[in-house]
């Protein structure tokens, strides 16, 4: 993985000093809250319902055991013993004190971590496929480019006060696990006929109040032009994006209102003016950074008889192996998904002890690498298949062995009104109750792949628009109501879910979800047809009837 050189270290140290000074000036009154707020947000610090919240960047979701241990230490020392992994592959602490954030940032800097641009109207943490560098279907490692973009976007003098936040995602495989089409810029690594690396570029995707799928602006952008083209897009957005209404300020609205052709022409004009200039990526530099992400020295495959035996003898292991392992490009290796969705748990939460357990496993069996997925799970990307039974045993002892990756209880949920100042309803307890309802392992297996995603307000941090079943919490007459959408998807065949009908109360919503799932199980065309496929085949009518009757 990427390692800081002396300049990176100097950069982050200086940033910590800068932010510490900003905190000092806020506490002394030199900065008003209005002036401080954009500055603290640019460093991931929110003021939520009960306390401040600090969002720490995990660039493209990659970290090592030392970093994970540091997160555990911070959770214990400055927080309440746990952290929350987010849909943007970051981690959040829910209870830090403002006057202790400089100390936290100093500790993070010790392990090459920071909170730069995890919030605010700037270019946010660049996300990538959580199986990057391991997946069997990968064209190139997206983290190389995510790292270059991360660096280039850090404290960008021109793009630190954009109309609104700006999110970039990259996928290196044809099967899009990074949801690139619902990002402000989505990059899909491709090779052209000459075998050169480049990107298909999408612009203007996003969720929130007005969900939109990104529009393609380039079939093939040469690798060398990545930064110049990104700068062109950002410049057009910074100049012309709306600033009169924060709900219309994302680039997707600019795309929509200007028209994709005209906007594309604007971008190309800016691009022409700067291409072949100082932003051109030299091949040697890309190669140098790529070397950081070189695959670890894989060991010889172990004794897979151990694995096969465990399938027969260890209770629960067969399910775990069926759901939580992903094919690896290296023979004898797999990627292991560590579910942060125990039945009835808060999605994405991990205790300090659990973080340490995962760190130990990564150090011992996983070439010291851990990933955070945008599904709010953790991943050990490089693990020998023969070691999986041993890993499973440790996970099971620590409440981390739920065999539900991709299943109905692998629910994405934002913090919602239990923590978030913007929320209109709770999300976590809805997720917990759904999880309990479907908790029986056989039932989950029988239902198969199903993504439920829950947001506590229209900001859609829980990505409900792209859930096969999406749930949006709203407030109606002082009560929590939940609107259900169906048919959303965030992979290479992205679609925005459609509202099925009137919402449900907090009490009713779990029954409604169960009703939908039962309906699907009854009408699916065999066990091989997933919820999404059934929905796409039959449309909303049977589901609507199930929920609201046939009037």
């Amino acid at each position, binding site marked *: 993985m990427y390692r800081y050189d002396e300049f990176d270290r100097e950069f982050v140290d200086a940033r910590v000093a800068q932010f510490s000074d900003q905190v000092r000036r806020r506490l002394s009154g030199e900065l008003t809250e209005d002036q401080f707020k954009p500055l603290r947000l640019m460093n991931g610090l929110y*003021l*939520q319902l*009960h*306390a401040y919240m600090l969002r720490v960047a995990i660039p493209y979701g990659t970290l090592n055991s030392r970093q994970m241990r540091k997160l555990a230490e911070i959770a214990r020392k400055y927080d309440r013993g746990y952290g929350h992994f987010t849909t943007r592959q970051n981690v959040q602490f829910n209870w830090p*004190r403002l*006057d202790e954030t400089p100390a936290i940032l100093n500790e993070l800097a010790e392990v090459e971590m920071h909170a730069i641009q995890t919030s605010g109207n700037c270019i946010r943490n660049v996300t990538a496929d959580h199986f990057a560098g391991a997946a069997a279907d990968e064209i190139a490692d997206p983290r190389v480019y995510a790292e270059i973009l991360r660096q280039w976007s850090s404290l960008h003098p021109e793009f630190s006060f954009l109309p609104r936040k700006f999110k970039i995602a990259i996928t290196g495989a044809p099967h899009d696990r990074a949801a690139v089409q619902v990002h402000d810029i989505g990059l899909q690594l491709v090779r052209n006929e000459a075998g050169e690396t480049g990107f298909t570029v999408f612009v203007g995707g996003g969720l929130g109040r007005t969900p939109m799928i990104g529009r393609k602006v380039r079939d093939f952008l040469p690798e060398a032009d990545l930064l110049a083209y990104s700068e062109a897009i950002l410049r057009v957005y910074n100049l012309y994006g709306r600033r009169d209404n924060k709900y219309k300020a994302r680039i997707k609205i600019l795309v929509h209102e200007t028209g994709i052709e005209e906007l594309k022409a604007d971008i190309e004009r800016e691009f022409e003016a700067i291409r072949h200039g100082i932003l051109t990526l030299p091949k040697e530099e890309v190669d140098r950074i790529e070397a950081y992400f070189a695959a670890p020295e894989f060991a010889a495959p172990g004794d897979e008889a151990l694995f096969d035996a465990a399938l027969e003898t260890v209770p629960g292991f067969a399910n775990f192996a069926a759901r939580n392992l992903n094919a690896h490009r290296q023979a004898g290796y797999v990627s292991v998904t560590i579910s942060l969705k125990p039945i009835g748990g808060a999605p994405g939460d991990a205790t300090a002890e659990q973080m340490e357990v995962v760190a130990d496993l990564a150090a011992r069996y996983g070439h010291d690498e851990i990933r955070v997925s945008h599904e709010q799970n953790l991943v050990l990307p490089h693990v020998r298949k023969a070691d999986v039974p041993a890993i499973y045993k440790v996970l099971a002892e620590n409440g981390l062995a739920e065999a539900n990756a991709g299943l109905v209880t692998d629910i994405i949920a934002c913090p919602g009104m*239990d923590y978030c100042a913007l929320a209109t309803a709770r999300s*976590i307890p809805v997720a917990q109750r759904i999880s309990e309802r479907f908790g029986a392992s056989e039932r989950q297996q029988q239902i198969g792949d199903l993504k439920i995603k829950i947001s506590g307000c229209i900001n859609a941090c829980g990505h409900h628009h792209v859930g096969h079943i999406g749930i949006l919490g709203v407030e109606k007459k*002082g*009560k929590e109501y939940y609107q259900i959408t169906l048919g959303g998807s965030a992979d290479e065949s992205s679609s925005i879910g459609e509202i099925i009908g009137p919402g449900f109360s907090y009490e009713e919503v779990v029954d409604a979800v169960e009703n939908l799932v039962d309906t699907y199980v009854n009408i699916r065309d065999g066990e091989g047809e997933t919820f999404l496929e059934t929905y796409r085949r039959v449309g909303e009518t049977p589901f609507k009837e199930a929920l609201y009757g046939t009037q």
Partner: protein
Amino acid sequence: MKLVTANRLSDGEVVWLGAAGRWVETLFEARLLESREEEAAALAEADASVARQEVVEPYAIDVIREEGHLKPVRFREQIRAAGPTIRLDLGKQARRQESAA
């Protein structure tokens, strides 16, 4: 009936305006505002406190009396007064239990 609430600048703790312009950490200690005038005066005190870097973003909330206790009308404010509904071991509700024990 109203109260004025805010978050403390230094640590983000939820506070309410109590007697004599003091910020208090539990809702039952808060100063009940029975009229528009009292509310305006309390908000002015709160603004002065903002200027002294004590709290941020003060605002008034509606409360009702239920079984002799004050209770915020909005659910959001109930959660602020207690803590996360999913973690009864955290937030003010946890302290209450501790002190009861």
